[in-house]
């Protein structure tokens, strides 16, 4: 079985890529004929497996951790965008192993969807896990956010080495109380920045209404102290360092603190001592992942894509990228990968778009978005649920202006596809 499962899987992978197919099929084939393939291959890694999960920011955070570890001279295997399911991990492994099934890497850093991570960790207990947040996302899949928190708790409970938790997210921080095996580390945020992270429980708490008492915060290994326009201050090891940042958006930079904690844990356990300057240098160079605050160039001017998929994310997006001087488009789809439920649009305030208005609305739920903006007194240019003509009209109508598009996941994929016809769009394999 072992002898031909890898070559066969690789063959399926080649054929399916030639056909322009997705990443899951070869993973499915190898899982069927050789169910132990993933576990066996990953268990050979000297530094084990690190899992990154949470509702928001997995892709960019995973990318950061990978680049930080590579700056320390480690060989890292990772799963790229769109394959954060068990089957996708197997498919990604097929691409990286040699014909005899050997993986040349020190560690695997894997982005895993909350629900699929549960199955994955049952088969491959990770040495490290990094749990980012539990935002009100994907309620149509999980029903309740408390349920999502339970999924993350399960990942933590299967972790053999170190669990890295978000000190500022009560549902994530609370996971520490349920663990007795793994070591727990935290990343944190300066109190002055907390207000920029409206948590879902506070969305509608009015001023003056009593706030439930919070327990004292645990010590965090890395704390984000300040976010500037293109730099940030992190505190760790008793000192504060300032580093340049290519990433934009407070939430991305907060996740940089998470990536630093995990990378420091892993590199600290490796053969070579941690090179802190190298880590910071690598951090300052990390570019946003696929569609997450990407800046492209159209007609010689920037076009920013901001991925939005839940109320906190949309609020942060609006806060992080001021509307002034920009032409704005919003693209809202309600396909499975976006979440079918549109309720969350009503928990975002759009006042910040009032001044300039929104030039174009598109996506399968463009009219829901129009209705939402109407109730916030935001002027609307045009509405067209079809993405291709809407994008063309937006670009045509906004000549001479930088542009920004807030989009859900599948809308982002469609927009990138259209943009690739007129500009160079980063290609992710």
């Amino acid at each position, binding site marked *: 079985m072992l002898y031909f499962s890898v070559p066969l899987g690789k063959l399926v992978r080649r054929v399916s890529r030639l056909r322009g197919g997705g990443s899951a099929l070869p993973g499915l084939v190898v899982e069927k004929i050789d169910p132990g393939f993933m576990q066996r291959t990953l268990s050979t890694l000297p530094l084990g497996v690190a899992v990154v999960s949470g509702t928001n920011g997995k892709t960019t955070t995973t990318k950061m951790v990978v680049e930080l570890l590579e700056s320390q001279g480690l060989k890292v295997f990772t799963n790229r965008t769109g394959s954060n399911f068990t089957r996708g991990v197997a498919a990604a492994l097929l691409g990286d192993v040699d014909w005899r099934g050997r993986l040349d890497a020190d560690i695997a850093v894997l982005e895993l969807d909350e629900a699929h991570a549960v199955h994955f960790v049952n088969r491959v207990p990770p040495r490290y896990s990094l749990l980012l947040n539990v935002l009100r996302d994907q309620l149509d899949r999980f029903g*309740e956010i408390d349920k999502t928190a339970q999924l993350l708790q399960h990942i933590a409970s299967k972790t053999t080495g170190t669990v890295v938790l978000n000190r500022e997210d009560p549902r994530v921080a609370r996971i520490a109380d349920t663990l007795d095996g793994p070591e727990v580390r935290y990343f944190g945020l300066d109190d002055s920045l907390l207000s920029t992270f409206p948590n879902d429980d506070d969305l509608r708490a009015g001023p003056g*209404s009593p706030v439930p008492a919070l327990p004292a915060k645990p010590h965090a290994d890395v704390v984000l102290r300040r976010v500037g326009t293109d730099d940030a201050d992190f505190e760790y090891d008793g000192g504060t360092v300032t580093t340049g940042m290519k990433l934009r958006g407070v939430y991305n930079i907060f996740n940089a603190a998470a990536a630093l904690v995990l990378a420091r844990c892993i590199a600290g356990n490796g053969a070579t001592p941690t090179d802190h300057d190298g880590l910071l240098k690598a951090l300052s160079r990390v570019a946003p992942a696929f569609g997450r605050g990407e800046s492209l160039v159209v007609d010689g001017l920037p076009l920013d894509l901001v991925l939005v998929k839940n109320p906190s994310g949309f609020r942060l997006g609006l806060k992080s990228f001021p509307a002034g001087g920009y032409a704005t488009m919003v693209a809202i789809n309600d396909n499975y990968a976006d979440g079918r*439920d549109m309720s969350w649009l*009503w*928990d975002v305030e759009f006042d910040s778009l009032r001044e300039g208005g929104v030039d174009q609305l598109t996506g399968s*739920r463009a009219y829901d978005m129009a209705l939402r903006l109407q109730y916030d007194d935001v002027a609307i240019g045009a509405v067209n649920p079809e993405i291709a003509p809407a994008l063309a009209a937006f670009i045509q109508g906004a000549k001479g202006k930088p542009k920004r598009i807030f989009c859900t996941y599948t809308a982002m994929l469609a927009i990138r596809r259209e943009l690739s016809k007129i500009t160079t769009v980063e290609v992710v394999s």
Partner: protein
Amino acid sequence: MSKGTIRVLQLYPRDMNIYGDWGNALVLQQRLRWHGYTPELLEYNVGDEFPADVDLIVGGGGQDSGQLVIQDDLLSRESTLKELAETDTPMLLICGMYQLFGRFFKTRTGSVIPGIGVLDVETHGTDERLIGNVSVSSPEFGDILGYENHSGQTTLGPGVRPLGATPKGTGNNSKDGQEGARYRNIVASYLHGSLLPKNPAIADFLIRTAVERKYGSFTPGAPDDHYATLAREHAAKRPR
């Protein structure tokens, strides 16, 4: 010049607002303005003093944990809320608040969470989660569009009538094809999405009854429902 002030109270927005229920309060506020009235938005959370002179009440859905947090406080307000209901105060109760305004919620494990009994309904927790886009055909409001996400299943007693039947989606429970409950000026429903933006007929019913109750008669304005109509048409075409 304003035709008058209407005080809209949100019940437990801190703990019972998980499905965009804020949208319902926002819509009432804006439509009151569009109809020429002045909205005054109030909120009531656990431990607050209950405001006087409330004209319209909205309550939302929460997680099971949110329901536990508000349970005792809600029971302590039973007589106030019953009196408001019996004197025809319009109320919109979504999901969790719909359940707790009923007689009881019996959980899957058999424990009984008492409700305040404003509505003659009872709810039983199940392992089945009812999730997806819904359309309801209502004799009173026409087609109602929204989204449901609940595991509690509600059965209506003779003291209430259903809001409508569900050609798409499940509604109150997986058995009788009915959605929501109507009693006096109360509209109770499992639909969010939020309910009111895409269903202005219900918003205007709540506004009209609030104004009539307070001022004797209602003179409507002319809100622009162009986008609401298009959003409804598109929502009706989306798969479950």
